[in-house]
């Protein structure tokens, strides 16, 4: 993926998240504070603005702009976490005009590690980690298929990971205050993570 493809990804993600703002907020209303949709939509709208006219030659630079912008516009728990995801990915891909499969895997993995370091969440704590983790494993395991297909499998794993958060009793984030009452609801951050990865697969398939 080159800079144009990465920009197309983010553009698609902004669109998909905007379309699903209400849905994400409703998920957050059930076990959180009803702002996840607005937070993500605000962040990605800002990113969209920042990327218009942004140089495309350095993927790392694009990802850094995305990370910094999300960090300074989302707020809440998801702001530092999505910001960290892109900033860590940017470090790995700094100076590269294009990311090959290995670099994509490295970037996503660095992002996940950053998220876990910042948020201290383990798998099955009912967070965005539960979408990103399975996605990375599916991507890594998808040998012998095209990049688009491999990212498609990652997105599908993210979708399943998000869905699998439903029965979990949350141990991190705001949902943890509900104790047992948090079970039975899908995690909003895992869901937005799935939308982000779905956009990535779509951009790669274009």
């Amino acid at each position, binding site marked *: 993926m080159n800079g144009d493809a990465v920009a197309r990804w983010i553009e698609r993600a902004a669109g998909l998240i905007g379309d699903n703002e209400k849905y994400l907020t409703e998920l957050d209303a059930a*076990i959180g504070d009803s702002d996840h949709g607005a937070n993500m939509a605000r962040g990605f709208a800002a990113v969209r603005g920042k990327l218009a006219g942004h140089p495309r030659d350095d993927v790392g630079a694009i990802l850094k702009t995305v990370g910094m912008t999300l960090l300074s516009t989302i707020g809440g*728990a998801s702001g530092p976490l999505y910001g960290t995801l892109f900033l860590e990915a940017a470090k790995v891909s700094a100076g590269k005009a294009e990311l090959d499969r290995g670099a994509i895997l490295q970037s996503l993995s660095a992002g996940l590690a950053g998220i876990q370091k910042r948020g201290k969440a383990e798998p099955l704590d009912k967070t965005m980690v539960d979408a990103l983790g399975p996605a990375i494993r599916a991507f890594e395991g998808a040998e012998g298929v095209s990049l688009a297909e491999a990212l498609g499998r990652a997105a599908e794993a993210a979708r399943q990971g998000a869905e699998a958060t439903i029965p979990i009793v949350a141990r991190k984030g705001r949902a943890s205050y509900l104790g047992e009452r948090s079970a039975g609801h899908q995690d909003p951050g895992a869901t937005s993570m799935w939308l982000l990865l779905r956009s990535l697969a779509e951009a790669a398939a274009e």
Partner: protein
Amino acid sequence: MLPSFGILRPMKKLLNAPSDLVKEALAGMALAHPDLLRVHVDPAFLVRADAPVRGKVAVLSGGGSGHEPLHGGFVGRGMLDAACPGAVFTSPTPDQILEATRAVDGGAGVVHVVKNYTGDVMNFEMAGELARDMGISTETVLVNDDVAVQNSLYTAGRRGVGTTVLVEKICGAAAEAGRALADVAALGRRVNEHGRSMGIALTPCTVPHAGKPSFELGPDEMEVGIGIHGEPGRRRAKIESADRITEMLMEPVLDDLPFRAGKDVLLFVNGLGGTPLLELYVVFRKAHEIAAARGLRVVRSLVGPYITSLEMAGVSITLLEVDEEMVRYWDAPVHTAALRWGV
């Protein structure tokens, strides 16, 4: 034109575009209190009018909007040097906190008073790292006083609620008195350790962007163990009499520290937004009676809506076991939009 803005139903709110709410409210605060504070627009924060105060430790707090007067209403002499408001119920971002920290640092360092929510903690953490990179000393006082939430190493831990107001007042006074960074922070932590809170909600609230109530409650139901973000509480129960509700809040609070007979306490009955003052005094009366029956001496009190959850009807009770130093700093002059005495 209805203030529905892409949301299907209009809301019972005085609102223009939801995305302008915080910005417009800040503009209103600047116009209403020019003697007290200055507003910075992008990134958004408030500082006391004479910031930075040379040589004084600065006290800064912030968090999602929707809890007013917390935090902006506590900016001024003897309390906060700066407040960073996020979107409604959304922690502020690191750049807001960093810029505000820089704006109020008078060379003696900055105390960050942070309510224990994952978002607040992470955003303040990142801002703190950046500030330290710039050579500004910062200390964090984490407030986590809500006994409705189980405390555990494996979860996000307890929420920060009512005690936040008391930490901000007492730290602000200590800073004003010239105390050093480490002292102010240590005092703030001591206040947090000695404060406990719990709340109930009789009605939900509506986040402007969401356009509908955060949860639904039957006409005879209440949420017990409510936070301040419109999130559901620990359990749902039938509404009870004010006296019974007060008992339901006081018992877990008293048992948690635990508060022992003979101690001096500050009793803070806080309205969550939509509950009239009249009812808060009814609760105060019963809470005072319960505290007294436990052998506690209520030496200071605070009654009113100070840390709210938009228009939510409900109440929280905070009990702080005070020592002589805390009382002295509580009594010290304060001049803010929402809390003022001695000046």
